[in-house]
């Protein structure tokens, strides 16, 4: 008999054990929502005016992480490719997880929680640390003081860019295969490539941010069709 079957014998009546908990949660949520709504008013600014652009114009908070990424990536990456990959990657999780328990989940947990943390750090920066011209303002800084525009950025030459990208992707795909053979064996080739591909793309986001902040790199790779 499996562990879950053994547990399923350990049943309680839905009424009252679950129903009253749900009722309590629902009432508590209602009270909190009601009090917050009495105390804090929803924002309503001036009438919409297409000729008066606010500076900065910000997306709703849950998209501010993506808007923050516009500093580091072209719009098709920040606004389309990255959110698209996040959604696909999330949906693929059950098909990529080899189904291990306990401490062997450390990898899965760090990837998920790391991604979630990155998402909320970017939202925090976009919400509280960005002012006019999307310049960096600490939350306590006066946003009426306009900061000078950022220094010019540069693109790496293709002679550096291509090898850098190929080494990153190639090394990133090969190294875990050679170091953690067990990990590769558990996943199989297709899942391994998908997991590592998505993971390398995710890690590339903070890497690119670091390159931009430390060395002012706008593009790692320039091609005639698009720049990354």
């Amino acid at each position, binding site marked *: 008999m499996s562990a879950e079957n053994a547990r399923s014998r350990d049943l309680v009546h839905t009424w009252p054990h679950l129903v009253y908990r749900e009722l309590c949660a629902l009432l508590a949520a209602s009270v909190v929502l009601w009090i917050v709504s009495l105390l804090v*008013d*929803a924002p309503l600014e001036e009438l919409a005016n297409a000729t008066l652009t606010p500076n900065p114009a910000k997306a709703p908070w849950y998209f501010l992480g993506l808007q923050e990424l516009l500093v580091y990536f072209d719009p098709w990456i920040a606004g389309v490719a990255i959110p698209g990959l996040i959604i696909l990657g999330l949906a693929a999780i059950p098909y990529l997880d080899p189904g291990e328990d306990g401490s062997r989940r450390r990898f899965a947990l760090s990837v998920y929680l790391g991604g979630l943390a990155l998402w909320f750090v970017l939202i925090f920066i976009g919400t509280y640390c960005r002012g006019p011209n999307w310049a960096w303002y600490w939350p306590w800084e006066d946003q009426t003081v306009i900061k000078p525009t950022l220094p010019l950025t540069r693109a790496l030459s293709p002679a550096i860019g291509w090898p850098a990208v190929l080494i990153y992707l190639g090394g990133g795909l090969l190294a875990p295969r050679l170091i953690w053979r067990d990990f590769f064996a558990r996943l199989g080739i297709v899942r391994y490539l998908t997991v590592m591909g998505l993971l390398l793309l995710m890690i590339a986001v903070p890497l690119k941010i670091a390159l931009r902040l430390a060395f002012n790199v706008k593009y790692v790779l320039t091609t005639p*069709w698009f720049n990354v």
Partner: protein
Amino acid sequence: MGQQLRGRASLWRRTRDRVLASQLWRSVIRHGYPDENRNRILVIISNIFLHLHPARVKRHGVKLRYTWCMGGLSAFLFFVLTVTGVLLMFYYVPDTRRAYQDMKDLEHAVLFGKLMRNMHRWAAHAMVVTVILHMTRVFLTGSYRPPREFNWVIGVGLLVLTLLLSFTGYLLPWDQLAMWAITVGTNMAEATPFLGAAGPFHELLGITKHNDIRFALLGGTIVDQNALLRFYVLHCIALPLIGAVLMAVHFWRVRKDGGISGPHGKLPKL
């Protein structure tokens, strides 16, 4: 004193039994008071709403520290948003010439209008948070594993839908905040590869500002009347309907895939 209490208790019991035995009560609820096992099961399985639940659940499945209650609260917030949203619809017209004035009226002239609007707004933000927390709980407990993989995928769909619902609602007040947030958001759509006028490879399909994906979203090249109407219809009709269908599938599959998952670490290898 004790006798008086006993008298009151028996008065309560007699009244209760009388009501429960009456024709009127029994026409609605056919079983007795749920203080013994048979009636506790009947109260769940003979009620269309309660029978989303099984009559009995795994002991750990009622624990707050296991479920965080976030899935249930997300569904509840969707319900709150539907009720407050319908009330707001009585007073709001998606016309650029009067939408903003309708918001002002809601704030200052409509009885409880401001409360309704505040509740709608904060419940919407809260729902984004509870849905993300629910997803995190399901991830941490490993509950997306077989046989529940596809229900996780449905859940990801519901997460996207929650964000889209919130985003489409953001435009409706027709103030500066609304217009420019939606301008920023939809400008990103313009950058879609192949399908957006500013995206890479758009020339291949003959995409311009006037036939790209942003134009389809806004019904034009700028955020104006057509965009307001599109967002309104999506927000009040299309997206909630899709959400309701996906939620029905999501809840139904929780039951069909074996009820609430086991605590992490105790899952069988299938």
